């Protein structure tokens, strides 16, 4: 689950932003050390893989299915640094291109989903691999445990952030219990799939599994009938983690504490009240799904009927929400999206028959689904000014006191003006806003579960604080999504990348993003072909017992992605690449363009300041 704007207050968002930026910077260095000039293509392709694999559905039972979060998998396959980078880039692109996850919540999302999962998983994994006997089975076991723990760990991190900067008063104990409890369950799925996938990769290309380096044998060559040792390319650098000797102790401590925390909260929450699976409100869920069959904003990922074709619409709209039956909150965890409920037996035909033209791309190159071609003054603005303006606008919105309801109305008017100037029709914008649906559900629950003073509305006892919280999340989240959608609707992908480059995002990060976008649909396409190949041989994944086959596909997909990354690197090298991308295009903005773009956040700022003083 991608946290939207307004969920976590501004100071905490800023703090997590700093943490995320720091971690990404460290990872950039670390990845460079490991992959040197291959970093950009390889990390880009792995990011595209993670993006694709998050859409690979693993059916659980009775219409429920889950998908990988991928943090643990990335860490084990490509190492912690590259892993953090890849998942971060995926999140960044999801935020900018698809308005998925708030721009101001990027720090929160990256910290939870990219950093915590990856680091926890890798530390555990290395620890276990060192303790266990040196066999491939140990690698699988270690992957299982690492992935299992990584998910509740991210939930715990989210709870911590919520405790510090949550915008609604909900008992933190309950949040923690429910979050960690349910994510432990989700973690089991993640663990099985991760372990199977790592197993599938290690069976074919053991040298590709970063976490299992050192388990490979020396290559032999047969020359004129004699076996000789291959001189080998440059020796692989030893994994950084392998050098520290305290690691074992550290990892063991970590396992114990995390597993304990996980189990305690799991049992705590399994009291007579029990965990109750509150699937997303059916009305809402249904609405989102029907929509996706037609022209859904959620289909923007443009996944061409990947796996079971539900993804485009279903994967975010119907997360599982868990609450204690009395008043505990539903948890939109960083990870809740990992399991989604779907009404059984409604899926096959109608969905497959979705019109094919949709099968354009997740956006590579020039057309991503949110983009609307046009020649308005907003389209013509240089991309970096637009990025800066939208980001500043969202920051202002998030910093506005929630009591100043009129201010949010004015913000909405400001966005409407921009939409008008950009000739983005209202209908288009409103439809795109449905991306927010899960949070509407969350907001609806808030008044019921929050603490403090209560009021009676239509005979229901609601928490005042909860009502404010719901309003806060809805207003800020919606404005955030609307602003991002406007940005994406008026800026071509290529331009967005140039804008990010111009805004001094580290070049390596921009390159990784650019490769991810270039190859995103090549890889989802490969995934689709694999599914077609499976199905045309009579295989259809129906439940847990088919995970093995799907994980093998995921493993194969990883190998293909990685090898393609290698080939792309080779093609680059063949044309003289030596680590720095030549700058071919650059964007510039005049002062007038800047002031035009900044008019939006500046007027918003004026509104905000009035809001604080009133």
């Amino acid at each position, binding site marked *: 689950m991608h946290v939207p704007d307004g969920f976590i207050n501004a100071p905490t968002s800023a703090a997590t932003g700093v943490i995320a930026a720091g971690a990404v910077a460290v990872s950039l260095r670390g990845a460079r050390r490991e992959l040197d000039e291959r970093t950009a293509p390889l990390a880009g392709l792995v990011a595209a893989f993670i993006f694709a694999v998050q859409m690979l559905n693993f059916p659980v039972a009775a219409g429920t299915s889950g998908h990988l979060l991928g943090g643990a998998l990335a860490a084990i396959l490509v190492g912690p640094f590259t892993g953090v980078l890849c998942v971060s880039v995926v999140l960044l692109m999801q935020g900018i291109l698809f308005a998925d996850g708030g721009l101001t919540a990027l720090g929160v999302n990256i910290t939870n989903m990219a950093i915590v999962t990856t680091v926890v998983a890798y530390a555990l994994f290395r620890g276990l691999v060192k303790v266990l006997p040196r066999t491939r089975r140990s690698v699988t076991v270690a992957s299982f445990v690492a992935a299992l723990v990584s998910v509740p760990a991210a939930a715990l991190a989210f709870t911590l952030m919520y405790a510090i900067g949550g915008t609604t008063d909900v008992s933190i104990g309950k949040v923690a219990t429910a979050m960690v409890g349910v994510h432990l369950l989700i973690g089991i799925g993640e663990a099985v799939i991760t372990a199977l996938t790592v197993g599938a990769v290690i069976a074919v290309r053991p040298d590709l599994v970063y976490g299992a380096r050192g388990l490979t044998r020396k*290559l*032999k060559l047969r020359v004129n009938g004699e076996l000789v040792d291959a001189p080998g390319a440059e020796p692989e650098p030893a994994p950084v983690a392998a050098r520290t000797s305290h690691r074992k102790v550290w990892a063991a401590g970590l396992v114990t504490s995390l597993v304990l925390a996980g189990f305690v909260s799991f049992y705590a929450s399994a009291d007579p009240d029990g965990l109750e699976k509150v699937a997303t409100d059916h009305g809402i869920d249904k609405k989102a799904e029907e929509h996706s069959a037609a022209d859904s904003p959620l289909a923007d990922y443009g996944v061409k009927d990947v796996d079971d074709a539900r993804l485009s619409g279903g994967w975010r709209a119907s997360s599982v929400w868990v609450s204690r039956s009395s008043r505990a909150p539903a948890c939109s965890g960083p990870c809740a999206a990992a399991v989604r409920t779907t009404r059984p037996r409604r899926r096959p035909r109608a969905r497959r028959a979705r019109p094919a033209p949709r099968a354009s791309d997740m956006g590579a*190159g020039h057309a991503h689904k949110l983009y609307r071609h046009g020649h308005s003054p907003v389209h013509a603005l240089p991309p970096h000014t637009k990025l800066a303006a939208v980001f500043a606008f969202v920051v202002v919105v998030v910093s506005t006191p929630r009591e100043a309801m009129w201010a949010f109305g004015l913000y909405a008017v400001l966005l409407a003006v921009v939409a008008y100037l950009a000739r983005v029709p209202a209908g288009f914008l409103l439809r795109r806003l449905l991306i927010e649906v899960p949070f509407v559900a969350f907001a609806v629950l808030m008044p019921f579960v929050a603490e403090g003073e209560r009021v009676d509305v239509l005979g229901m006892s609601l928490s005042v604080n909860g009502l404010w919280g719901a309003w806060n999340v809805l207003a800020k989240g919606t404005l955030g999504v609307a602003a991002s959608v406007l940005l994406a609707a008026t800026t071509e*992908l290529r331009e967005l990348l140039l804008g990010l480059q111009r805004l001094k995002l580290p070049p390596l990060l921009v390159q990784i993003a650019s490769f991810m976008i*270039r190859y995103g649909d*090549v890889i989802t396409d490969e995934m689709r072909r694999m599914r077609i190949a499976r199905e045309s041989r009579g295989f259809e994944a129906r439940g847990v017992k088919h995970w093995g086959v799907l994980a093998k596909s995921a493993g194969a997909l990883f190998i293909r992605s990685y090898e393609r990354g290698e080939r792309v690197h080779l093609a680059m090298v*063949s*044309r003289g690449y030596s680590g720095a991308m030549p700058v071919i295009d650059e964007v510039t903005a005049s002062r007038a363009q800047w002031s035009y773009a900044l008019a939006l956040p500046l007027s918003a700022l004026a509104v905000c300041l009035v809001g604080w003083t009133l």
Partner: protein
Amino acid sequence: MDAVTASLEVSGLAFAYPDGHQALFGVDFAIARGERVALLGPNGAGKTTLVLHLNGILTGGTGSVRVAGLPVGRQHMAEIRRRVGIVFQDPDDQLFMPTVREDVAFGPAAAGLKGPELEERVDRALERVGMAEFKDRPPHHLSFGQRRRVAVATVLAMEPEILVLDEPSSNLDPASRRELADILRSLEVTVLMVTHDLPYALELCPRSLILSEGVIAADGPTGELLSDEELMRAHRLELPFGFDPRSVTMGA
């Protein structure tokens, strides 16, 4: 052949992939400057693997590769990659930039070209392959054959001395196939062309090498090799129905 003037010289090259599968078992041959040579052989013979050794993309086996006398290795890598241009089998691997123009510009820009000079180089290369009007399209929106042509342009833009093409004619329509042949003939460079298209090899390359099971099984004039039925059968090479290499008069 005199080793000093050889444009490309490969000796004793053996190589195994990281998964342990050995693809080359000691390959020897030399190509003189300005020659056009076809590299023939069945699927899985190791042709692509060999090609990847020619500019140091694959290393770590035994034996040696020399380009214009320079050993392919760490110290001459930049020089060698400037001289050897490889068009890969899968154009998707080759076209990694967001637009056709940027992709073609990548090589020359990496070599330090800028501004109008760069634009001109890009335009010329695209013109040559007839893809000038696709300049601003993203590569993955092109058809396979168009991508292949752009891939050729990316290499032509670098003006290499040795041009290595891995199955350049596959997926091209007959007219494009002929146009590509015209381009190749018009260039004054050494060409090594991997192909399954035997008439194409005969048309373009006076000399051929047959790579089979990781070694060079035959080396000689293309017409002669293609007429040697026993040799052809032994290496799973088949001429298209009704094609007789002896009846073709070569205009190369």
